[in-house]
């Protein structure tokens, strides 16, 4: 892969996502449009990067679950909902919009897979 031409894209270009809430914890699925890009997500969308992305909202921990047969990843992010649906002062009390915050992360993708 190292020899291939790489391009930087946002996750939004290669994957889709949906967020759900339980208490002060959000889960965000990350699903590649093409199964071939799953490996890229595995390599580059790490727990550490996701924790960093959500740190401004108070995220304290991220666990990434892998579902190779779909394929998809599932991120469980603790303490990211400003208290959760019953106490958050954020307009988006459920964190429904956070799926598209995840999709702003940039990744390096072989040019052949960005089409």
């Amino acid at each position: 892969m190292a020899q291939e031409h790489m391009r930087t894209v946002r996750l939004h270009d290669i994957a889709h996502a949906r967020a759900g809430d339980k208490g002060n914890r959000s889960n965000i699925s990350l699903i590649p449009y093409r199964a071939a890009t799953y490996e890229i997500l595995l390599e580059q969308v790490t727990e550490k990067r996701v924790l960093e992305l959500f740190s401004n909202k108070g995220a304290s921990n991220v666990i990434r679950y892998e579902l190779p047969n779909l394929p998809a990843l599932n991120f469980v992010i603790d303490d990211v909902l400003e208290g959760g649906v019953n106490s958050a002062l954020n307009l988006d009390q459920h964190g429904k919009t956070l799926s598209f915050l995840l999709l702003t992360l940039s990744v390096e993708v072989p040019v052949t897979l960005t089409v």
Partner: protein
Amino acid sequence: MVPSVVNIGCGAGFSGDRVDAAMPVVETLANKEGPKYLIFETLAERTLALAQKHRRKDPTHGYSPFLENYIRPILKKCYETDIKIVSNFGAANPKGAAMKISEIADQLGCKNIKIAVVEGDDLLQIMSSQDIQNYPTIEGLEIGDNEVVAANVYLGARPIAEALSRGADVVVVGRCTDPALVLGPLVKEFGWGEDDWINLATGTMAGHLLECGGQVTGAYFADPGYKDVPDLANVGFPIAEVANDGSLIITKADNTGGLVSAQTVKEQLLYEIHDPENYFTADVILDISKVKVLEVGPDRVKVTGARGKQRPDTLKATVSIDGGWMGEAEMSYAGPNALKRAQLAIDVLKSRCRDIKTNNPIRFDIVGTMSVHSGDNEDTTNTHKYPDDGDYRIRIATCGHDKEIVERVNQEMLSLYCSGPAAGGGFRQHLTDQVQTASILVDRNKILPKVHFLTDYA
């Protein structure tokens, strides 16, 4: 005789869902062979606490306020075409909901309709508020000494199956797991045993895919140019076809918009799931980690590979306590130098709020620069990448138990009309009665769900 396929459609996925979504599902189901069911899921976590408050004010209330809107358009057709209805319309008053449905059935001429009520989810019926306070919290805040407004256990599929086996045309539940609305009919039709983990897992997965209505059929999915959805305005609601061998197909109502694709199913499969190997329900621990989805026809997706593990010995319960008040207020600034005026308005608000001397949390947003993706304490002056000219809306939000203080914060936004920067307009405010929730685990042996028919109460 055990049927080869059971068809289950969903008419609502949350308490505010469309009331006209169920009819196309009913019309599609009516043409299908085999047993047919329609479910409505209308009970979010905190909805029940609000319902409990309504019931305290009026003992005939406390069920889904939208019940009639959902039931009236479809009840007669369902009754005539043998489509059974299963729903958690009951909220804090399943019997009240059943009586309302009976009244509607009478008006529509559905003679001898059998309406069953599942009771036993209300913990306050079997233990005191103090007993409940003593349980450790597994999710949400500590209950402490706060008065318990509502406490309800998530019941499983068994009592629903029992009600159906005893001939119910309509089953009304208060709190049950959302997937149980689907699993109940499957258990009844296929006779799946209490330890038939693999089939219970498949039925639970079917329920999980259906419980949010259109979220599996192209709703809450569209992203123009990336994920396009045909005729989203008329998105069709889902139907699951479950076979006796545990195979599952997700499709949708005929002659509707939306779509069922591998992508729509994957998004809903993972919705509100944490560890994919351990999704705890009252009936089974569902493992979806090896699930595969396959498009087998237009708007038809086959879902395979659900696995199940022995159900937990405890049942989850949601406990609601009074959560005080939330105040929100907004004002717009637009045109030349709008952002600077918005920021000055926030400076003024911050200064005025300091004078209120409250420890209540207060949040400030400038919608158009930073809001939903920002944290509670972000710097509203850090907006250099946004133009000074524009159309911005500032927002203040606070919460607390002292209503007067919460109202005073809102009042500070209102006062900007005459005392703030130039040309603030479009003030709006909300004051919301809040409920806080916590989750506890209760020994399942303590919970004894009961099925009653409306005629039993007479």
